[in-house]
């Protein structure tokens, strides 16, 4: 969050810490669009995204007393929302066993030949990833977590996290390039 916005938001946070509803609403209006964007990218449908957004903001307002103004407020809110998304994922964990790195055939493509995708199709493609791939890919790319951190958060092995990330990348390339080819033909 920009410094200027930080200056604006600091009194709001203090009012929120006093439980003032108007301040809560203002903070929600400021941050909800961005957080809902995050939720949409982590979830399979809008309903789940909305549930996570609500749960995340309830936790934000319930724990806002613990915010010490030592870092970015938006970053703090985002961590809470992402933790909520992780918990949501773990509650709805896919039943099928996931691959381990030992069984995974590494299939990296040459980065220099990476096509340039449109932002919209890229975001939509990520939401269509298999659920665990989507979660690992988002945590790795957007939250910049290490495989050890992802493994601990999701309750999977480090190898599984690595394999899921590679498969997610490959899946995206396959689906995005096929889409691009169809577009070119049409």
């Amino acid at each position, binding site marked *: 969050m920009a410094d200027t916005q930080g200056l604006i938001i600091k009194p709001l946070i203090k009012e929120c810490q006093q439980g003032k509803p108007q301040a809560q609403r203002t903070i929600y209006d400021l941050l909800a669009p961005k957080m*809902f964007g995050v939720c949409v990218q982590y979830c399979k449908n809008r309903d789940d995204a*909305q549930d996570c*957004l609500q749960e995340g903001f309830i936790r934000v307002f319930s724990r806002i007393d613990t915010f010490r103004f030592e870092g970015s407020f938006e970053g703090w809110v985002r961590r809470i929302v992402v933790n909520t998304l992780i918990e949501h994922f773990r509650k709805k964990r896919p039943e099928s066993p996931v691959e381990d790195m030992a069984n995974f055939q590494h299939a990296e493509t040459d*980065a220099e*030949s990476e096509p340039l995708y449109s932002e919209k199709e890229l975001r939509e493609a990520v939401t269509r990833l298999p659920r665990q791939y989507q979660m690992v890919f988002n945590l790795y790319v957007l939250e910049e977590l290490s495989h050890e951190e992802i493994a601990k958060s999701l309750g999977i092995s480090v190898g599984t996290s690595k394999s899921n990330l590679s498969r997610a990348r490959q899946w995206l*390339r396959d689906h995005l390039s096929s889409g691009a080819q169809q577009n070119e033909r049409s």
Partner: protein
Amino acid sequence: MKSTIPVDQQYQHSMQHFEVAPPPAAWEGIVARLPQQKSRRALWIWLAAGAASVTIVVGLLDFSTLFDIREPALQLAGSKMHELQMSEAAKAAAGTVTTEKEKVLIPSGALAETTAPTRVDLEHPATPAHWTAHRHAESLPALAMRSVGFDVRFNHTAVAKALKGSVEESEKRAYTRMLLADAAPVAPIESSSRRIRYQVAGVANSAYASPTSSNGSLRTVESDEQGRMSMGGGLALRLQTSPRWSFETGVHYGRVGQKERATGSQPIVLTAADRSPGLDIAGNHRNSMGQLKVTAGAQPAMDNNFISSNTRPISGFTGDVLQHLDYVEIPFLARYRLWNHALWSVAVSAGMSANVLADNNAYVVNGRNKTRIGYTESIDPFVLSTSLGVSLEVPLSRTFSVLVEPRMKYFVTSLNESFGYQPLELSVQAGLGIRF
């Protein structure tokens, strides 16, 4: 078009300013589940209502009795009076006085016309002097009390005239009753008035806490949640400021809690991603008390309550969930004695208590097998409660007495604000009191 930007970076860039407007219902859903300021207002309303109730009760029960000790039945023997009664002169004088008083106060007619002042001085029965009325007829109860105390000189004429002119029949009866108490040893009024008496009591109680939830933004009470019986105990210090009024404080250790039963169709499974202690599994299981935090990841695998799965990277517990919150309670109670019998007394008590959280535990129970798994999250370390009770006190001697008090206690502030957990506790306290 080919690029040198990996798909990761392209995606990261696409998300930098990506925003989606949430539906309006999202905010409404948040508001509905947020603990609002109105809950704080509700607390003040509760406190104000409690204070108003106490004030009204005090008013109805005659505030004038609050600090005024004047009832002869409760003023037990003073040594001075006892000595007086034992002396021959006092015996004779007392007999005279009692007779005279009865004549004055009961039929009143003939004696009201007595004009020659008859003089009786209890301490110096042979010394002639004038009697003086210390009180006017309007202050007859006080006068009567002094007569009971044997330390006031009467002007029979004045009293008789006052009685003849203005005393109602009911007042006569009151006098008669008081004078009959002359037979019992009674302490002088000067030495006993405004004296505060102390009573220390050790009490133990059995309590049932019923789960109730109000203003709960996250959870309401489920049908499979049951209250728990628990034991507690402590010390009570009672200050008796008048025969009817006393005030109580002390320290009391008590417990509230509940059991959530696992049903066949919906077993409670608490999972932990690994077995490291302190693992936060918040979100996996919650009930009306709050969200469970499992800290027993390192539990030995041979524990019957511990389950693990080879197909899924989880392990955890299943069974009934038992949650306990132990509080140290410091009560501030007012007590009003309703009935006072020679062998027993009954009083009502009401007031507020400050409760400080002392312990917080969660268990999984299967039959007799009980495993501590962690605790309930976000429990408030300090809560207020109100209580209302009816006490029975049976004196064993002047010093010792047995106390029994059924009491209802309600937590006016939530033990877990987000979940609105405000249990109602019904308890029976029993103890032994020592009076100083």
